[in-house]
C-alpha cells in the first residue's frame, strides 16, 4: 500500500495536540429501544452482527454544529485557550446541519471565533484524521492554533427498518486543539488515502445533486444510509485500517510492538476483533468502546482518543496509533507521542459541556 506520510520532524518542525474534547448527546438508545422503534433484528442478532449494546442519539433540537461546538468548547477549556486565539476551524462531517453553508461556519459563530476561516471536510468515518491532517498542515504553514473537530448526527439518516445499518450508528463529536510544538513530539506522523472504487458501498443515495430530494426519494427511503455489499465493507474497513497502520509504521521504521495503544475508529466489534488479529495486537492494547458508543462516523476516533486520554489509558510518553477507515473508501493513520502538557490538560474537568441553544 502506497501511503504519503506527513512527518513534521522531517520538516524540522513539530505539531502537538494541546487538548481534546468530546461530546455525547444525553439520550441513550439501547437495542430494545431500537426494536421498539421498528428495527427488524433481535437484541441477540444486533450483538452478534455488530456488538453494539447502546448508542447516543442527538436530541430533537440538536444538530451537528451543536455537538461540534460542545466538543470544541471542552478542548478550549482544557487547553485554557480563548476563542479569540483560534486561527482556523476544520469540522469533519457527513451530516452537516444544512447542505449549505458548512457546519463549520455555524460552529465558528457559536464558539465566537471572530474571523477565523472555517470549513467542513467530508471523509465519512475517517473524518477526524482528515481534519487532523488539514489542521497539522495549517500549523506547519504558519497557523498558531487550529481546532480539528469531527461531528456527526447519523441518527437523522438512519433507517431503523434496515437490517444492515439500524444497530450500527450513533451520534457524537470530538475535537482537538492543534498548535506548533517541539519536533519529535506530539503528532509524529499522519497518512491518508482514498479509493473511490468504494464510493457507493456505504452512501446516502438521495438529497444531493445526483438525486435531489423528492417525494419519491423519501417514499423509497433513499434519503437514508444504504450499505451495499456489507461483507466487502467489513473486510475493506479492516484492510483500510491495517494497511495504513502498516504503511505508516514502516515509513517510521517501527512495528506494532512499538505502539502502546491503538485507538481505532469503531465500525463494529467484529471488525475490531479482526483488526487485532490481522495486526497481531493484544486486545489490551486496543481501545474498544463500540458497545457503549456505537459507530459515530467521523467523530468516533476523536471520541475514543479523548476517552484514552481522560481515562489515563494513554498517559505521558505513550505512543498512540489512531486508525480510521470509512465510506468512500477513505482511510488514515496517525501516530501521537503524548507529551506531559497534553496528559495534564486531559485531567482538567471541562466546564460548560452542554451546547448553547442554537441561534
Amino acid at each position, binding site marked *: 500500500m502506497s501511503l504519503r506520510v506527513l512527518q513534521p520532524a522531517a520538516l524540522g518542525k513539530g505539531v502537538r495536540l494541546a487538548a481534546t474534547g468530546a461530546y455525547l448527546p444525553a439520550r441513550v438508545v439501547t437495542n430494545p429501544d431500537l426494536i421498539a422503534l421498528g428495527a427488524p433484528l433481535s437484541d441477540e442478532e444486533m450483538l*452478534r452482527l455488530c456488538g453494539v449494546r447502546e448508542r447516543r442519539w442527538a436530541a430533537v433540537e440538536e444538530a451537528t454544529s451543536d455537538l461540534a461546538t460542545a466538543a470544541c468548547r471542552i478542548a478550549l477549556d482544557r487547553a485554557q485557550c480563548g476563542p479569540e486565539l483560534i486561527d482556523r476551524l476544520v469540522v469533519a462531517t457527513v451530516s452537516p446541519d444544512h447542505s449549505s453553508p458548512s457546519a463549520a461556519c455555524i460552529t465558528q459563530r457559536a464558539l465566537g471565533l471572530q474571523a477565523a476561516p472555517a470549513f467542513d471536510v467530508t471523509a465519512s468515518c475517517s473524518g477526524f484524521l482528515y481534519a487532523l491532517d488539514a489542521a497539522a498542515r495549517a500549523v506547519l504553514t504558519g497557523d498558531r492554533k487550529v481546532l480539528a473537530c469531527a461531528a456527526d448526527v447519523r441518527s437523522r439518516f438512519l433507517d431503523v427498518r434496515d437490517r444492515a445499518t439500524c444497530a450500527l450508528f450513533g451520534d457524537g463529536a470530538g475535537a482537538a486543539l492543534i498548535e506548533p510544538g517541539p519536533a519529535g513530539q506530539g503528532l509524529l506522523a499522519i497518512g491518508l488515502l482514498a479509493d473511490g472504487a468504494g464510493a457507493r458501498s456505504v452512501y446516502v443515495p438521495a438529497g444531493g445533486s445526483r438525486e435531489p430530494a423528492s417525494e419519491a426519494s423519501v417514499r423509497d427511503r433513499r434519503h437514508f444510509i444504504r450499505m451495499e455489499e456489507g*461483507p466487502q*465493507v*467489513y*473486510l475493506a474497513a479492516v*484492510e483500510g485500517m491495517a494497511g495504513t497502520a502498516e504503511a505508516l509504521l514502516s515509513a517510521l521504521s517501527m512495528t506494532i510492538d512499538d505502539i502502546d495503544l491503538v485507538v481505532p475508529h469503531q465500525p463494529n466489534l*467484529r471488525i475490531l476483533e*479482526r483488526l487485532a488479529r*490481522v495486526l497481531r495486537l493484544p486486545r489490551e492494547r486496543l481501545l474498544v468502546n463500540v458497545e457503549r458508543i456505537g459507530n459515530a462516523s467521523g467523530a468516533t476516533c476523536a471520541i475514543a482518543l479523548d476517552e484514552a486520554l481522560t481515562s489515563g489509558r494513554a498517559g505521558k510518553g505513550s505512543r498512540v496509533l489512531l486508525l480510521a477507515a470509512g465510506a468512500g473508501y477513505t482511510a488514515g493513520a496517525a501516530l501521537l507521542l503524548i507529551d506531559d502538557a497534553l496528559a495534564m490538560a486531559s485531567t482538567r474537568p471541562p466546564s460548560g459541556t452542554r451546547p448553547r441553544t442554537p441561534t
Partner: protein
Amino acid sequence: METPELAIRAVLADHVELPAHDDAELHLPSLVVIVLAEELERRFGFLVAARELSPGNFGSIERLAAFVKRKAAR
C-alpha cells in the same frame, strides 16, 4: 484430512439450509458470508481480501472450494 468442500458445507450447515448440489447458486445473508470467510481463513490459513468476495469466488460451494484451494496453495 478435511477437504474445502466438507469444511464449507460444515460451516454453512450451521447457518442456512444446504443446497442440493455444490454448483447451485448460494444466496447467503451478509453475516453468514463473513462467518464463512473467517472460518475458512482459520481452517486453511489465509486471509480473504474484500475484492475476493465476488460471486466468482463465493457464488456456489463449488466455486468456493476452488477459491480455497487457490488461496491455500499460495
